[in-house]
């Protein structure tokens, strides 16, 4: 039986052309999804991988797991809600409400990923565009990004190969692909131009390009890069984690470069988020509070600051209870930092039984968005995509779980 098209939620490409073949409610074939998406969808049928409902490490009924979680949360004095990057917009709204009700701290992975870029895009400080507008571009740059490993179908669906003016048949090249990275990645291998920077030295490279713009003599790489920019009329930069980490979240020099570019071409920046609705979280929280992450609702007021980032909260042992929604915190954090969470009760909401779920006091298994639960999400370029489930869930969706928790907290 062909169950039709669905949206894959394994990465921020949110591919909406995934064909699913089902037999007796089990997926037997997946069309168009990449290796990552297929592994994710097939993995969702692997019962050993799925999270059930646990309270104090023991398997319980849904209801008691929810009760136990609600008790832990209401008893906490400084609860921290982290995640929601792998939840629908609807669930995110409820998550924000929950944090507000608890007077807790709310953050997501964007505080150590793309938060700064998305914030500046939302504030109108950084030019951006959607994937649909890529056809205007004559230069596509992946900077510190490795799409073939992180968002495998990005080139074929949204950038170079999807470009209307891209053609293989020997005609003049209308759109070029450039990669700036520390590693000669697979994407760099197929790019028309590759600029290798040393780890942590993107800043020097940007500075050199700016020098070049000002007419000063610069090195070979910077001059070649500048040459590309000078020929371009419209350039889209996909900013990956490599850029954020190399600049240590201080983008001032990068913005200066974008500013200079703006004098003769149309630049646009799209942050390459990892989780499927990471950008959606930033949008949701920005609409609710004016900030994209690192927010505290303590004392009924909204406060924002670096002290409310997950990393700071963990480092200073500020939180006395953690609600993690759809994030594998314990795998993602430096082990030395995760060790500081010892003794802090953690509740995990996740479709999969992750390392974080394994270390949690309470586990609430969730339905897989896109496959088993619907809603809406924001793709990395800011476009809203709606998810229509094709499978009947055996778990509550994270939206339902958060709603039930809110009800129980009264």
């Amino acid at each position, binding site marked *: 039986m062909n169950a039709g098209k669905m949206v894959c939620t394994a990465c921020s490409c949110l591919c909406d052309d995934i064909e699913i073949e089902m037999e007796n409610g089990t997926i037997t074939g997946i069309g168009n999804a990449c290796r990552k998406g297929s592994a994710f969808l097939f993995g969702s049928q692997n019962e*050993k*991988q799925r999270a059930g409902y646990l309270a104090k490490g023991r398997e319980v009924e849904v209801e008691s797991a929810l009760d136990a979680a609600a008790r832990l949360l209401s008893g906490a004095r400084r609860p921290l809600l982290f995640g929601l990057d792998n939840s629908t917009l609807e669930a995110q709204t409820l998550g924000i409400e929950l944090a507000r009700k608890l007077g807790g701290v709310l953050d997501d992975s964007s505080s150590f990923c793309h938060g700064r870029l998305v914030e500046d895009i939302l504030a109108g400080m950084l030019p951006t565009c959607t994937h649909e507008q890529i056809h205007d571009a004559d230069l596509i740059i992946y900077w510190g990004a490795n799409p073939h490993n992180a968002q495998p179908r990005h080139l074929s669906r949204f950038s170079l190969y999807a470009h209307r003016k891209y053609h293989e048949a020997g005609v003049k090249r209308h759109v070029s692909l450039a990669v700036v990275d520390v590693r000669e990645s697979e994407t760099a291998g197929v790019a028309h131009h590759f600029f290798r920077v040393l*780890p942590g030295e993107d800043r020097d490279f940007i500075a050199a390009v700016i020098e070049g713009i000002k007419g000063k003599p610069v090195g070979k790489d910077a001059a070649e890069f500048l040459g590309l920019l000078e020929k371009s009329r419209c350039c889209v930069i996909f900013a990956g984690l490599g850029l954020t980490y190399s600049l240590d979240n201080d983008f001032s020099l990068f913005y200066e470069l974008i500013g200079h570019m703006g004098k003769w071409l149309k630049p646009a920046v799209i942050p390459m988020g990892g989780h499927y609705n990471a950008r959606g979280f930033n949008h949701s929280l920005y609409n609710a509070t004016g900030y994209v992450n690192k927010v505290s609702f303590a004392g009924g007021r909204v406060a924002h600051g670096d002290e409310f980032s997950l*990393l700071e909260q963990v*480092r200073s042992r500020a939180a006395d209870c953690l609600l993690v929604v759809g994030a594998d915190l314990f*795998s993602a*954090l*430096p*082990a030395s930092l995760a060790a500081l969470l010892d003794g802090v009760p953690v509740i995990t909401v996740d479709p999969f039984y992750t390392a974080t779920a394994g270390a949690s006091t309470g586990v609430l298994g969730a339905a897989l968005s896109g496959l088993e639960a619907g809603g809406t999400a924001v793709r990395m370029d800011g476009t809203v995509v709606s998810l229509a489930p094709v499978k009947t869930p055996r778990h509550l969706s994270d939206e339902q779980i958060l709603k039930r928790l809110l009800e129980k907290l009264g």
Partner: protein
Amino acid sequence: MKLIIVIYRDVFLWSEKYKKDRTDSWEDKAAFVRLAEQDLKALGISGDGKIKLSNSVGSIVVRALADSKGRSGYGFMPVSPLVNRLTSYGEGRLPNFKRIEVTAEATKENC
């Protein structure tokens, strides 16, 4: 030998996580570092030698693979909980996921 380790993403390992017959062996599969050939030589490692990476927060033993496109002094490791035993975070900065300073030595220990 002093090295700088950079974490990168690997789609094949990521997919491995969700495999049906998965035990936790995918973490072992992620236990490798890619080094420039001359660095491997300097460390006296050939074939599938093991390498011990250590710094002030921890130490791990991984397989050392040759990276023909690698640059001397830098190593690349895929994302996994394993490499996080070497990473650290200091106030006001991002964790050092993309620039981990370690000391490397050839070893006979197991991963």
